């Protein structure tokens, strides 16, 4: 049970990449990539969690209360933004691919090989 969070992270990572490999639609591929990206959020927040810890905001709670790690949350925030920006760029490329190739099947983009 104590491993569940980490196992879920590993699963999301693996299944996301599997989705990228087998994808037949660029937009679908981007979403699969974001699933794999989500594994890093789960892993980071899982690592920084402390049993019984409060959210790391001393507003209404005294500063002696045990809190969960604020650092992983800062990292996850950055990570969320990075994931979103990459998704946006890839979607822009998918739109262009559709214009140039008339297809969004990654296997039908065939201007380059060898």
């Amino acid at each position, binding site marked *: 049970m*104590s*491993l*569940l*969070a*980490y*196992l879920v*992270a*590993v*699963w999301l*990572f*693996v299944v996301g*990449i*599997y989705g990228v*490999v*087998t994808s037949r639609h660029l937009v679908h591929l981007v979403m699969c990539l974001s699933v794999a990206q989500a594994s890093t959020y789960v892993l980071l927040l*899982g*690592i*920084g*969690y*402390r*049993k019984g*810890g409060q*959210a*790391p*905001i*001393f*507003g209404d709670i005294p*500063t002696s209360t045990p*809190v*969960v*790690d*604020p*650092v*992983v*949350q*800062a*990292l996850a*925030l*950055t990570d969320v*933004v*990075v994931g979103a*920006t*990459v998704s*946006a*760029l890839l*979607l*822009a*490329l998918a*739109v*262009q691919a559709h*214009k140039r190739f008339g297809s969004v099947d990654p296997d039908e983009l065939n201007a380059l090989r060898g």
Partner: protein
Amino acid sequence: MRSFLALAALGVLGAVLVVAVTGLEPFGHYPGPYGDVLAKVVPDERHTGQLVAATVFDYRAFDTLGEEMILFAAVCGCAALLRVLRSEHEEGEGAPARPVPSFAARAMGAALVGPVMVLGAYVVVHGHLTPGGGFSGGVVVAGALLLAYAGGQGLRLRRVGSITLLEGTEALGAAGFLALALAGLIAAGTLLKNFLALGTSGMLLSAGTIPVGNVAVGLEVAGAVALVFAEFLEQALLEDPE
């Protein structure tokens, strides 16, 4: 063939990762020390109880600087990749009009714009006190702009010049955060160093540069997200070259 190869490889990779994560402390036993040290020193040193905001905008502000610039680069990239080429042209006058939203939908949209915008701004300026801050708030503000569009008030983005305005807002936000970083260098001798009075913890105007950073990030994110929305919308309205 390819999926079998991938299945086998990912199976092995997954197994190795499972072995690796068993070496981590069990869930719920954060080992420290980084987060614990911050939890101890932030309330006194930064006059704020929002540890995440203090981490994001002060102790690890350089990461945030990089993150904002990633966002900035991605927006420049989207704008470049989706730029309207000479070979393409906007829908002519005779093109079929897009369906006009019903009056009720437009009224709903218009009525929501103000409150959503206020909510976004509120989230931005309270980032050093409550969860949220520049990033979430900025997206909410961009969402309000999208609502304004859905309400049928902002058609023809390029012609109205709103894209230029959004570009300006985005660049201003990015430049604002950079300026804040440089101000630390000029006023306090070190990049990103706090140079404002820390005030009383819990007040709106406290925690030195943290709320200023939140506002700059909020501006940039709102401009960036709205700009990306606008670029994609414009593409959806373009005719393809045949």
